[in-house]
């Protein structure tokens, strides 16, 4: 048993629903009690879908448990077929149905439905949403895709984009256009937009482009083994990764078409002098493994940030992420406990967070700017405009998105210069934002105070070894003159410096000695 306040991933059947909802002509029958239909609103509200997800719920109740829940499943399955006439049916059990062990797959197979039945085994008490999506797509491919003659023209499948994915809609459009420019036809894009009939002809492609390992790596491996299709290992997030991806695709396809980089603006935007102020900004990254690993490279090599922490919530990506973190001289944070992430961010005191919607809330609480780079998603992550993360346009979008939460360069200078001018002060937040930013907490709050505020768990207080260091009031006043977006770092550096030197008090001199010590 594990106490959870907020979760990064839903249960595995929600992952399977993301695959079913992305597709056309597929219907899913979920053996589930009343209430599990809440999952529909994720798609209709957050993603603004104009259709209900193609999912029927058996809606069993307590009184059915002693009776015939298996019969209820079969009648729901038949009703769903009769009403929706899908090309294939996918069946699964939610967490509660898993406990009553009705075996939806076995039941559906005995019904003699005239379409393929794809049974999913989703261990709800062990695995999570990404597993569910990956597993559902794998089983769909296994059931429907067969080896066949390759297309005459070099073609590929794009696999991975699902419903409710972070910018999947626009990434798919961007990469499709890039491949087209390279002279490579897209045979099938799946799951997004594909029908079971499309899955059946996936074998005609020469190779697969794997956009999101979280949702389609198992299918990519299966296709490699059973359809003889190699797949791309580079995720084209950022300029360097997009160029590496193009190189990889050329090797797989033999394409020699030049790719026009004229619309790629990000390298000049970061090189131009206005961006100097981004140099060495300390950023903390958290999200799914794929987006975090790519964002870490972009942050360091393309934006000139300093990556001061990184982690992911999906254990499936722990190994490569740990290796990358080591390369950055960091220890990766692998956890799905939101409170642990919050504690790590508070302890690191970064100048910016690149995270998920959960970290956006952490940033709001701690007064740290945050840009969203990964699922879990919220309604804001489905903009009306075209806004890919991948490819060259994606690199442009990353620059804009990551710079937006920060105080602008010249404004930052002026804030340093005027410090506590009563009309022009840092607590007002970046001038291009409407809302007022919260300054960082002045001191590590004690647990009871946090309880009074009503937080579910008190925020972690300062590390205990620092408790015996006292800020003299003059030093405390001086610290407050430092703009809020660097104040947290200054406090932390000064305390570490004092601790290193064995000081028990921090004076104004200590503050500036620490500043000189950490100068870069």
């Amino acid at each position, binding site marked *: *048993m*594990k*106490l*959870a*306040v*907020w*979760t990064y991933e*839903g*249960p595995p*059947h*929600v992952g399977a629903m993301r695959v079913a909802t992305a597709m056309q002509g597929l219907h899913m029958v979920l053996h589930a*009690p*009343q*209430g*599990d*239909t*809440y*999952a*529909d*609103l*994720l798609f*209709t*509200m957050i993603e*603004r*879908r*104009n*259709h*209900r997800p193609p999912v029927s*719920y*058996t*809606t*069993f*109740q*307590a009184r*059915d*448990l002693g009776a015939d829940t298996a019969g209820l499943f079969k009648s*729901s399955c038949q*009703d769903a077929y009769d*009403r929706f006439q899908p090309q294939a049916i996918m069946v699964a059990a*939610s*967490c*509660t149905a898993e*406990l*009553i062990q009705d075996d939806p797959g076995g039941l559906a197979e005995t019904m003699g439905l005239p379409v393929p039945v794809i049974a999913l085994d989703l*261990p*709800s*008490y*062990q695995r*999570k949403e990404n597993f569910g999506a990956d597993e559902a797509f794998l089983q769909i491919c296994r059931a429907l895709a067969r080896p066949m003659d390759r297309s005459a023209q070099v073609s590929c499948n794009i696999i991975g984009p699902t419903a409710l994915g972070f910018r999947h809609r626009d990434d798919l459009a961007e990469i499709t256009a890039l491949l087209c420019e390279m002279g490579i036809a897209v045979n099938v894009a799946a799951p997004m937009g594909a029908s079971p009939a499309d899955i059946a002809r996936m074998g005609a492609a020469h190779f697969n482009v794997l956009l999101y390992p979280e949702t389609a790596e198992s299918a990519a491996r299966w296709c490699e083994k059973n359809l003889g299709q190699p797949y791309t290992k580079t995720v084209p997030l950022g300029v360097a990764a997009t160029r590496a991806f193009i190189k990889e695709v050329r090797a797989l396809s033999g394409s020699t078409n030049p790719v026009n980089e004229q619309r790629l603006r990000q390298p000049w935007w970061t090189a131009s002098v206005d961006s100097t102020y981004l140099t060495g900004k300390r950023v903390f990254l958290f999200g799914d493994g794929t987006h975090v690993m790519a964002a870490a490279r972009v942050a360091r090599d393309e934006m000139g940030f300093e990556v001061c922490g990184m982690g992911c919530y999906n254990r499936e990506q722990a190994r490569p992420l740990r290796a990358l973190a080591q390369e950055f001289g960091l220890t990766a944070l692998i956890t799905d406990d939101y409170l642990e992430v919050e504690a790590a961010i508070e302890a690191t005191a970064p100048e910016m967070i690149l995270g998920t*919607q*959960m970290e956006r809330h952490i940033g*709001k*609480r701690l007064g740290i700017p945050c840009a969203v780079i990964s699922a879990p998603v919220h309604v804001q992550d489905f903009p009306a405009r075209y806004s890919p993360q991948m490819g060259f346009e994606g690199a442009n979008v990353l620059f804009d998105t990551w710079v937006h939460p920060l105080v602008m360069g010249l404004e930052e200078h002026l804030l340093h210069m005027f410090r506590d001018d009563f009309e022009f002060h840092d607590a007002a937040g970046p001038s291009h934002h409407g809302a007022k930013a919260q300054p960082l907490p002045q001191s590590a709050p004690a647990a009871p105070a946090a*309880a009074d*505020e*009503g*937080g*579910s*768990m*008190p925020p972690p207080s300062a590390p205990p070894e620092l408790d015996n260091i006292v800020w003299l009031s003059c030093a405390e006043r001086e610290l407050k003159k430092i703009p809020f977006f660097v104040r947290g770092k200054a406090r932390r550096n000064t305390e570490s410096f004092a601790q290193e030197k064995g000081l028990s008090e921090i004076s104004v001199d200590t503050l500036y000695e620490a500043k000189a010590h950490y100068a870069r």
Partner: protein
Amino acid sequence: MSTDPTTCQSAPVLKERGQREVFCGLTGIIWLHRKMQDAFFLVVGSRTCAHLLQSAAGVMIFAEPRFGTAILEEKDLAGMADANEELDREVGRLLARRPDIRQLFLVGSCPSEVIKLDLARAAERLSVQHAPNVRVLNFSGSGIETTFTQGEDACLASMVPTLPDTQARELLLVGALPDVVEDQALDLLAQMGIGPVRCLPARRAQDAPAIGSNTVFALTQPFLGDTHAALSRRGARHIPAPFPFGAEGTMLWLNAVAAEFGIAPDVVARVTAAPRARAEKSIAAAASTLRGKRIFFMPDSQLEVPLARFLTRECGMIAVEIGTPYLHAELHGPELDLIAAGPTLSEGQDVDRQLDRVRAARPDLTVCGLGLANPLEAEGLATKWAIELVFTPVHFFEQAGDLASLFARPLRRRAALSRQHPNFLEAAE
């Protein structure tokens, strides 16, 4: 109860059984934890329960989550003794971190019910362990037993047996209302000279009401059937009345309470004159948009019957179908007496068949859950999200106009966007 054929009281009820597009009772935690400020709600369930709670409100309430989920894992399902120990440990950790908590609710879920985890015994055991600082109670919010607002009913019903005894003649208001609305109601009752008045749920554990055979209670929500039964078992007596939605509903509700306490009609008229006039004026503003429009209620919060009464009688709307998860004869009877015969009354749901009826009727406004709203809008049918009706202050005189405008807004919005709404363009082609 009348059997007047001109009202819905005697209308046949279409009973449906099939897929239900509704929340489970756990959803009630989202407003209950805001109402009871020293209570924590610990769901014993699965990742699905945790995901529902953070998704249901549409936003994550990061500021003050006084709820959480103890997620059952594979090893908990293997042996029961183990699961109890794990629960005790998690509760211990939670209470150590939250010393301000005075009431802890262990909330049963579908998985905990199916594996027959005995949360009643766990609550007893934990109550002894954590006495006197924390009282531990339990109720079920599971989808196999409860629909949406029934979670609040189950929660309040679980509190009734623990309330102290009294022989005092007191009025008890039952139902979780926003504090501002509750204060308005208490003020009106005080002006009429009715008191003392207690509330269930109380805002804090120390203010919990006492009950006994001299207690009379009035319900402010139409979904509190089990709580009604539990209070009756303790000897308290219910004051039957329509629910305080709209100017008329509020007036009838206050009249019933005043009559019980022998308050003279001229006192009631004097106290209510000004707020009632304000309510009627503000309802009239919204009613100009609503008059003559046809409305279809999908079953959701059990507020459907009283809201249909309000919208048909005070806003001039025409009800096509009034769907409700459960039709509680005793609680909803006074409402059905007031609704003119005509609309289909349905109980339970088979969502695909009901959507067929919506499409055939093409109502001007459909009240439905969040999962159905955008798909219906895309078909050109205006909708009102039912969940807003439980999250927004809508009771009593001062909110009556707000309640009416919740229904008027989707219609006004469509009118405002009519030049570019996708459905109007399609129709024009």
